[in-house]
Each structure stands twice: as structure tokens, then as C-alpha cells.
């Protein structure tokens, strides 16, 4: 006698982590594959100039066109992926190390040490990155290394914050109390007991850090402080290309595409991680 009633038919559930992963991995794989291939071979030498064939639009010989030096953009994009990936990974590694080494003790011990470390972090965050890059150039000489150091230092406070807040939460949990009762030394507590539990929070931060570093590096390139010519990173290629935006848009399109792929890939993976980890936490 009763009609079957459906309250709001709805088939959607919050997106699966696997969707994020697959999109992210496809995008990232594209960039990483380019990078791996570039280690062995590029169609042309990425630095070889050829005044005769400058600013060629994409054609069979140069699928991505050539730049104002007559260099093959495809080859340059490939070799740029190397620098972009290397710089972002190494930079994140440095800031991750600096951040955890300062953030965890700050959160664990609190008090004056915490104040001091956070003060230093805030000061660095207020300090213009460009000036820092200049200092790095002066101290380490003009090379990729100085870019990495500068980036590592600029981003370290972000990681320190994540670590500090996470540590402050975790140290109140019973298992840390238990470890203290058992007589485990603070250093061991911080490294073996707390750090592994920060990983879920650090992972997305790391992925976002990779993306942010890439952007920051390109900003530095724009001011001539990033990768030194004739080497290229995506950011540098973009800043070099801006003068030709009207006559040779391919100079901007392809590096921008790769940059967007790289960052988008990273973001999707971080999103997937977030979903996975938040589910894991609830279980």
C-alpha cells in the first residue's frame, strides 16, 4: 500500500584518494619521465645556440619551437625539468631538516628555547628572500647551490611551525607520557617516538613545499638570482620568455605547461595523501 519513497537520491561520496593519486601520478609521471629521459639524451644540446634558427615556431624539427638563441625549447624544457626537480627536492630537504631539527625541540621542551626558535623563524619570514639570495650568492658563489640554500632557509620556518604545533599535540598523548615514564631519553623520544607521527602532517606540507619552492625559484630567476644561464629551470624559461610573449608565445606555453603539470601533480598527490591520512586517523 505504501509507495516506495526515496529521500533525496544521492550517489556521491567524498572523492576517493585513488582518484587524486591517479591524476597526480599521471601528471607527475609526465614531468619525471621527461626528467629521466633528459638525463640520457635530449633532441638537441639544450645550450647549443644557433643564430640562424632563432624564434622558430613549433615545427617537426623543433616540436616546441626555438628560443631567441635558436635553442631547441623541447631540449631546454627537458633539461629544465632536471633543475626544477633537483632544486625543489633539495630545497625541501634542507628546510625539512632545519624545520624538524628546530621545530620538534621547540614544541617538546617549550619555554625559552621555543620562544627563541620561533622568534628566529619569524624574523626569517620577515626577511626579504631576495636579499637572502644575494647573501647566498655572495657566500656560496653563483651556483644552483646558493639557490637551494636560500630556498631551504626561507622555507624552514614553515616546516618548523608544522613540527612545533604537531609536537605540542603529540607530546600530550599517553604513549609519549608512557615513554617518559619508561625512562626514554628526550632525544630518542623526539626522533623515534614523535617524529614518525609527524610524518602524516609533514607529508602534505612537503609536497606543497615542493610546489612553492618551484614558484619561488622562478620568482628569483625573474630577478636574475635563480639558475644561472645557460642552464634553465621552468621558472627561468618563463621569465626569459616574457619579452617574447607577443611574438613567440610557445616560449611561455611549454614551460608553463610543464610547471603547471608538476605543481598540479604534486597538489593532487598531497590531496590524496590528506584523504588517506585523515581516513587512517579515524580508524
Amino acid at each position: 500500500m505504501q509507495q516506495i519513497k526515496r529521500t533525496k537520491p544521492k550517489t556521491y561520496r567524498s572523492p576517493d584518494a585513488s582518484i587524486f593519486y591517479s591524476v597526480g601520478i599521471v601528471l607527475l609521471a609526465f614531468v619525471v619521465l621527461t626528467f629521466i629521459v633528459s638525463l640520457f639524451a635530449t633532441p638537441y644540446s639544450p645550450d647549443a645556440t644557433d643564430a640562424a634558427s632563432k624564434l622558430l615556431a613549433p615545427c617537426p624539427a623543433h616540436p616546441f619551437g626555438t628560443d631567441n638563441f635558436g635553442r631547441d625549447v623541447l631540449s631546454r624544457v627537458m633539461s629544465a625539468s632536471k633543475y626544477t626537480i633537483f632544486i625543489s627536492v633539495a630545497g625541501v630537504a634542507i628546510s625539512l631538516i632545519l624545520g624538524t631539527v628546530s621545530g620538534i625541540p621547540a614544541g617538546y621542551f617549550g619555554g625559552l628555547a621555543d620562544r627563541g626558535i620561533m622568534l628566529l623563524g619569524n624574523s626569517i619570514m620577515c626577511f626579504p628572500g631576495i636579499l637572502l639570495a644575494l647573501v647566498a650568492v655572495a657566500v656560496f658563489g653563483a651556483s644552483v647551490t646558493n639557490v637551494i640554500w636560500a630556498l631551504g632557509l626561507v622555507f624552514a620556518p614553515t616546516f618548523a611551525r608544522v613540527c612545533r604545533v604537531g609536537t605540542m599535540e603529540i607530546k600530550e598523548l599517553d604513549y609519549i607520557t608512557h615513554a617518559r615514564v619508561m625512562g626514554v631519553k628526550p632525544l630518542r623520544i623526539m626522533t623515534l617516538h614523535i617524529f614518525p607521527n609527524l610524518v602524516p602532517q609533514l607529508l602534505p606540507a612537503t609536497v606543497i613545499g615542493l610546489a612553492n619552492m618551484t614558484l619561488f625559484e622562478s620568482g628569483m630567476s625573474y630577478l636574475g638570482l635563480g639558475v644561472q644561464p645557460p642552464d634553465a629551470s621552468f621558472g627561468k624559461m618563463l621569465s626569459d620568455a616574457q619579452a617574447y610573449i607577443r611574438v613567440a608565445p610557445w616560449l611561455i606555453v611549454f614551460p608553463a605547461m610543464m610547471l603547471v603539470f608538476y605543481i598540479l601533480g604534486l597538489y593532487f598527490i598531497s590531496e590524496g595523501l590528506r584523504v588517506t591520512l585523515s581516513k587512517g586517523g579515524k580508524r
Partner: protein
Amino acid sequence: MKRFITRSIVAVSALGLLVTSLAGCGKKNADANNCAVVGITQEPGIFDPHTVVAAGDEEIIFNVYEGLYKYDHEGNLNPCLATGVEISADASVYTFTIRDGVKFHDGSDLDASDVVYSLKRASGLLDGQDGTALVSELDSIRDVTASSDGKVVVTLESSNSELLSYFTTGIIPENYDNCQQAPVGTGPFKFDSYNPGQSVILKKNENYWQKGLPYLDSVTFKVCADMDAGLTELASGSIDIFPYLTTDRANQLDSSKYNILSNGSNMVQIFALNNSVEPLNDVRVRKAINYAINRKDIISVTMDGAGVELTTAMSPAMGSYYDKSLDGTFDQDIEKAKALLAEAGYENGFDISCTVPSSYLIHVNTAVELASELKAVGINMEIKQVDWATWLDQVYAGRQYDTTVIALTSTYAPYDVLGRYKSTDDGNFINYSNSTVDELLTRIPQTADVNERTALYHQVLGCLTEDACSAYIQDPTTITAVSTRLEGYNVYPMYVQDMSKVKLAGN
């Protein structure tokens, strides 16, 4: 929800505002009547005609101050505040006749005492000065006096036949010492205001001694961060004149709105080789580098072909002082370069670095092209970008570098161009040392005869080429975009903007 709706409304209206105001933006400077806006890339800072050294300052104050003599856009040195000069036979006494009827911007009349004061000030002879010349080239002046018939007599320490071109130094009112804050000169435009980092505004000098000039009521020199920023401003119509463009950028402009003028700049772009570091201290290596590079390609890449190839330290724009016989000495010859390197013991090449100022894109690009070309002969050149201050400190003053790329600017005085190759000169940052050249350069100012001097200059150039003291690349063409709404603009082969003859098109 009410809040949300309000916010949406604000958002939409903001968007509307965006569109309408953008439309308004473009019109701002275009209808400015009888005014012109010139884009400059160097921040001005010094307006004192005697302490000014940076080229960027000079391009503005050229319109404010005038000297006894003045260059025109063809490089001719013409009488200006002087009507003529008599030079003694040994070239140690210069006697100038001062022009009548010239008024300073503050209304006072120009007379000999003003000239004496100005020249003394420039050469450091005023009471209270320690004798160091503000204009270092005028250091050799021993005394300046006004003769009874209103002429000005300049006596030199020693004979110097090359000094006339430095009497372009600006003349200021007697005992006036506030040129930095409130410049007062006799030029076609009066100084109006300076907004650091933004603009310098000049106003018409109604009492200019050349009747009918200038045409414009005011000129604004607007600071642009770099060439590309200037280009964007040109494209958006907010500046009328923008010099120092490259051809490929100039080509992006709408030709109905802008005329593109090009002219030799009388600059010498040099691939400077530090003569005192290994392996560049070997003349064979330097020659090899000269043979290895392709100047035409460099010009093509950096200036889109708009440049004159150079093989020696002087631009052909210098006329007779330039030695045509040296043309083609270093045409690209890879085999010869390799042979020379092998002879010097570097058959497998070597590693050097090139320190370039990051603010000059043309030099950075030149270095990139050079690095690519040098690779062909086995020389591995690493490029290091440094900022301008570091470059000046480390490379120019400190001379701590292997190679660098820079452009040497000069006035039309040939001595200006070549003086730096004296081994003791402050500007000899390439550490070049050749006793013959030193001797020649000492002799030149003492030689009164022009032809003789020219021959000596040719000898110097010959030595420089023979020693391959560095690799000279090009005299980059100055490409200037001028709005079609203006006419009468002349490109100078110097770092100046002469606005006196510019007027609105059709007037």
C-alpha cells in the same frame, strides 16, 4: 545569507569597477597636450653637472645645463655658450668668447664670471676645494680667468689638444652651490621636480637663447624598471619615447603608433678578458678567443642584427679616429683558434668563468651566446650573474674575475675611449699593460696637430688589436621608439636625450 548576498553584490560591482576603470586607465597620458614622456631605465640621482658621472643622469640634465661647447646628434662639437675658442699653438691656453644674451633659469644673465666659477668648480680650483677635480678630465686646468674684454682664459698644466670636448661641462650661476636640489642652468628646459624612483619633470625655459626653442611645454622622464617594463608602458601608451630597445622588442610595437629610430650608440661592447689571469695572460689564448667567436651571430641573437661588428676598441662612429684597416682582423676561424690554443698548450681547452651584471640583459645574452660558441674550441665558460653593485666592486674596481661582458660608453672624445688602456689608468680593469701604448697615450695630448694625433690613435688601436687585449664585439645600435604624435626627435650617439627640438606632429 544576507551577508553573503551583500558580498556577492560587492563582488559584482567591484568587477564592474574593474572594467570601467581599466577603460579609463589607458587614456591618462595620451591626451597630455604639448608634453612628452620619456622612459628611462636608470634611476637618476645626481643633478649637479660637475659631480654627475652616471650616464643615466646625464641624459636628463643635457636639457638643463649647457657647456661652452655642445655636441649635436651627428657628433659635431659646436659652440654653445661660447661663440668660439682660440687655442694656443702648444695647446696649453684656451681662450673662449662668451655668448651674449643668455639668461639662466633663475633670470640672471650669463657672463664671464659665471663661466670662471663653473670651470673652477669643475676642476677643483675654488677656495675650500682640495684640488681634486670634480670632472676628472679637467684636472689639468691650472687656472681660469676672465679677461677684460669678457673672454675667459683657461690655462693648462701641460699642453693638451684633446680638452675641448670636455668644455661641454655645464655652466652654472656664479657662487651657486645648490645644483643637486635645485638645478639652475641655461638649457632649453628648467628643472621642475624629481620623484625618486618615479620621474623627473622638466618645464619649458621661456627665455632660451635659441629663439623658438624648445617646442614642448614640459618633459617627463619616467623611470622604468627595465626594458621590458618600458616596453609594456610603450604598448600601453603611457610613455612617448623609449630608447635602448632591442629590435625584436621594437618589432612588437604597433608601427602606426611608434616610429622606430636606430642609430649607432658609440658604445663598445667588450668581451673583457682579464689579462693578468691564467690562461688569458697568453696572447695566443686571447687571439684564439677572438677567432672563436662569431660577432655576427652574437649581434643577431642579442640585438636582432642591429649592431656594428667591432674588432677593435673603438666604434666606427668615431670617424677618422677609427682605423678601418683593422676591419676583419678577427673573422671567425675555428681552425685557427684551435691551432692557437694548441700552440699555447691548451689543445684540450680550459675552464673559465664569465661574470656578468644581471641587470643588463644584452650582456647576459651575449655571454650565453659566447659560452655556446667557445665550447666549439673546447673552452668551457661558466656564467655567473652578479648584481650591478657586486660587478662594480668585484670586477671593475676589484678586478677579480676571468672574463666579463660590458659596454664601454664614451663621449666623442677619442682619448676618452682609449685612455683606459694606459696600464696605470683606474679604468683599465682588463689589466692590459703595454709600454708602447702607455707611451703613445702620454704623447697624444701633447700633440697639437689633428692628423698626427689621428695617426697616433691608429697606432694605439693597432697595438690593442695586435695584443688582442680583449674581444670586441659590437657597437649596439640604439633603437628608440618615438610616438608618432611627436616629431623632431634626434637620436644621439651618446647617452643623452635632446628634447629641445621635439614637437607635436603636424605643428
